């Protein structure tokens, strides 16, 4: 007869205090160890009196040579230690594209356009249902070309949208940081679904007259997680070039990707993706540390492409009528959860406090050796981070992650509100969410932020930032005019 499973202790109040105590002891273990030692040493000194101490010192027979050698070795060891550390990467500031109200797509407009463009009644109904449950608000924006009936996805319009969103974001960033374009050493641009030749990075070089020995990279096709991927690339480059800064642009160009067909799994992006862009300035110069907002602690990348199901869950292809679109499979949530678990396995040991890691380790050992029916211990990431920026891919993604990571409503508020106000802006959504947290005045010095992005491939990338100075509201940015109205209550279904 199998032994009864471990009862659900977590609901017991007494256990909560035990857990708290355990956390305190383990996390401050070294302090607990050293404090008695230090106290006893001090007591010993006081008891012995100054003369005894002096005689003790003389008995050591130290002379100048010994002291000099010791101090030399000490200084030498410290220098080598500091030199061999990886260069710190600072985020000086970032700016998000603020769409003009003229580009707004309220539900009524979207449905009217859909009814006029879509030939199939069933598709119209499907899109209505999606929009009702999407978690989007009435102020999300589409580029000018998509406001035509039918939309006009020309290359010229796509380039125009790219210029609009990217240049606005960069201009904002220049104003905020006083950055001179000629000082940019590294440029990384990521835009998944629009990649003209010459690249968007060349477009930026041309507009801002950047230097000819600039290191530019244009990443494309890498999905909604590409923003953190670009940060990782910029970080690797900043390790190689001392005294440099890097400009990272994350965006998604909507114009060329309107799906004209009737396949349901391909209609979802039409409903969810909206216009957005973010420009981020990174630096590895020590003197920028005092004016930077954040410091990059970790970036962890997980690629689940080896699994066929994961590879196909966000897939661009042609439907039977020859219309090109991106299909989102029904397994998306499960695969996202799986990718997140893999990512957590790597990032957990880097960020979790010792108490959580020990608990996880003991539970793992217990499950393997003692009783496999023990519930697996989900580490409490709220211990490691104060703020969470989850990619606003859709309502379901945020719900799934909230459940998986056991987060409260306040932790995912930034993600939900960003989805409501701006829609799914793909790789730049994480920066809109960060701006929300700052605008609410919640970002304090020492706070740690966890940005999680998911994307086609299937990839899950995370970045961990540490806040270096308290950000005082009001904050310049896309939330400036509407932050007072947030958070809003987002109903399960909006009746259209």
């Amino acid at each position, binding site marked *: 007869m199998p032994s009864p499973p471990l009862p659900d202790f977590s609901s017991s109040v007494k256990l909560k205090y035990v857990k708290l105590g355990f956390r305190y002891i383990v996390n401050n273990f070294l302090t607990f160890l050293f404090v008695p030692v230090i106290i006893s040493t001090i007591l010993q000194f006081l008891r012995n009196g100054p003369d005894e101490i002096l005689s003790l010192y003389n008995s050591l027979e130290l002379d100048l040579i010994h002291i000099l*050698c*010791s101090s030399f070795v*000490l200084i030498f060891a410290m220098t080598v230690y500091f030199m061999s550390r990886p260069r710190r990467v600072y985020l000086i500031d970032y700016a998000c594209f603020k769409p003009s109200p003229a580009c707004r797509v309220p539900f009524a407009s979207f449905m009217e356009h859909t009814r006029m463009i879509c030939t199939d009644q069933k598709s119209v109904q499907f899109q209505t249902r999606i929009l009702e449950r999407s978690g989007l608000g009435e102020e999300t924006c589409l580029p000018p070309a998509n406001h035509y009936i039918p939309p006009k996805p*020309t290359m010229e319009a796509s380039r125009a949208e790219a210029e609009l969103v990217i240049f606005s974001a960069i201009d904002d960033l220049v104003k905020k940081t006083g950055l001179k374009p000629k000082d940019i050493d590294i440029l990384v641009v990521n835009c998944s679904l629009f990649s003209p030749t010459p690249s968007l990075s060349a477009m930026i070089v041309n507009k801002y007259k950047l230097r000819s020995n600039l290191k530019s990279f244009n990443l*494309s096709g890498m999905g909604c997680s590409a923003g953190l991927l670009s940060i990782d690339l910029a970080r690797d480059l900043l390790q190689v070039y001392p005294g440099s800064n890097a400009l990272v642009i994350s965006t998604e160009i909507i114009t060329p990707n309107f799906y004209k067909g009737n396949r349901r799994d391909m209609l979802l992006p039409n409903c969810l993706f909206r216009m957005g862009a973010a420009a981020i300035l990174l630096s590895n110069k020590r003197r920028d540390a005092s004016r930077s907002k954040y410091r990059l602690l970790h970036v962890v990348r997980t690629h689940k*492409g080896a699994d066929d199901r994961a590879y196909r869950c966000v897939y661009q292809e042609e439907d039977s009528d020859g219309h090109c679109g991106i299909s989102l499979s029904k397994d998306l949530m499960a695969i996202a959860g799986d990718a997140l678990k893999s990512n957590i396995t790597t990032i957990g040991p880097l960020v979790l406090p010792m108490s959580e890691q020990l608990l996880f380790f003991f539970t793992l050992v217990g499950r393997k050796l003692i009783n496999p029916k023990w519930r697996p211990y989900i580490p409490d990431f709220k211990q490691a981070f104060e703020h969470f920026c989850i990619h606003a891919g859709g309502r379901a993604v945020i719900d799934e992650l909230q459940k998986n990571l056991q987060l409260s409503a306040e932790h995912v508020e930034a993600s939900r509100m960003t989805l409501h106000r701006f829609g799914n802006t793909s790789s730049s959504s994480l920066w809109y969410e960060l701006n929300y947290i700052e605008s609410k005045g919640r970002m304090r010095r020492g706070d740690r932020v966890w940005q999680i992005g998911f994307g*086609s491939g299937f990839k899950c990338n995370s970045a961990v930032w540490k806040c270096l100075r308290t950000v005082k509201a009001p904050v310049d940015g896309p939330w400036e005019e509407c932050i007072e109205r947030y958070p809003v209550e987002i109903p399960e279904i909006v009746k259209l």
Partner: protein
Amino acid sequence: MEVLATLTTLMLIYSLYLLYKFYSLKLSSDCYLIDYVCFKPSSDRKITTEMSGAIVDRNKTLGLSEYKFLLKVIVNSGIGEETYGPRNIIEGREDSPTFDDAMLEMDEFLNVSVGDLFKKTNISPQDVDVLVVNISMFSPAPSLASRIVQRHKMREDVKTYNLSGMGCSASMIGVDLVRNIFKSGKKTLAVIVTSESITPNWYSGTDKSMMLGNMLFRSGGCVMLLTNDPARQAQAKMNLKCLVRTHIGSNDDAYNCAMQKEDEVGRVGFHLSKGLPKAAVRAFAENLQQLAPKILPYSELALYMYRTIKQMAVKPKDSSSSAMARINFKSGVDHFCLHTGGSAVIDAVGRALGLSKYDVEPARMTLHRWGNTSASSLWYVLGYMEAKKRLRKGDRVLMISFGAGFKCNSCLWEVNRDLDDGDVWADCIKNYPPQSLVNPYMERFGWVNDHTEDSFKQSEREFLSTR
């Protein structure tokens, strides 16, 4: 006293260990090219000049001037009879390429070459740490990098980078990316995949500047394996010495000279303007300015300084262009891999660097045999040199490429061991260099130059009905 001595010794040992770690970090910034595999499409994809002519004929909107223009382009291109094109163009569907056609073109390359590289170098896909893919004009979601990860079941922590839109010099950008990642010190194995997508980019209009692209680009690709692990040095073919990237996009003419855009009626094509040679020269000059001090021996640099000073003393306002021709690049470089953008490009670069017929032969022969395969062309040129057994240990190879934007990227490799692997050239190298590079199309269709607009249309109909 003993306590202090022990502590001091321990600190010393620790700091020496840190120092050793620090310097091994610096040393392992070497970038070795273990091997590379070029792509040879199947022979049913060969495009002869006659087939090119038939493809041009299919576009009924062309008039005499366009026909003559295209003729001139085809004849002067230096492209031979055995280059390869994508299937949809050969099958006559160039005007309506589907997404599946484009994917098929990529799959034919990826499914063959990546596996070939793993087999050749005896590396398992699970050992790959970094994967860089660059295909300029086709970028689906999920990326082609993810497609390779899926097919070969690579690890979860593989770092993939999918570069796109960066033009014909993008394989150098891939090498630059990998080289920078190598400098972190960790022993890394990197795969770079470079190719170009022609299928979705056929121009079906009448703008002359956009028709050039149709005529010149051919199918090809290359997959390279690089590492910074000194343990694999014996296996490596070449060692990267330096890499210089130049981007003159800040100049509006340079930025606009090679651009993908719509013509007046809205058809998308790749526009190559008349200002392209000038932009190329400017970018090339700037690149050489940075490259020359890094690759030339001090004796040559000193000689150059002496010549410049002498020249300035005689004619102080003289431009530097004539002075540049007198730098002897062959003193620091033994072999030249020039981007096969067209015979005009090869000639121009050869003249600028003062190269002989022997030096530009690999590039010319690659253009003849494979056409302009965009970013991967440099590797076919390298393959020619290897097949001709020109690469000996210690030789230095300079690669120069140009790309839209406008970019000029160059790098210098040092050959690690005597190389004689023919790879894709193995079966035809004995036919090179051929007796004559003259295009047979010229002989058959030279009459075009003798016609006016009306007589052209009449005789064209007569002529085509007899073929």
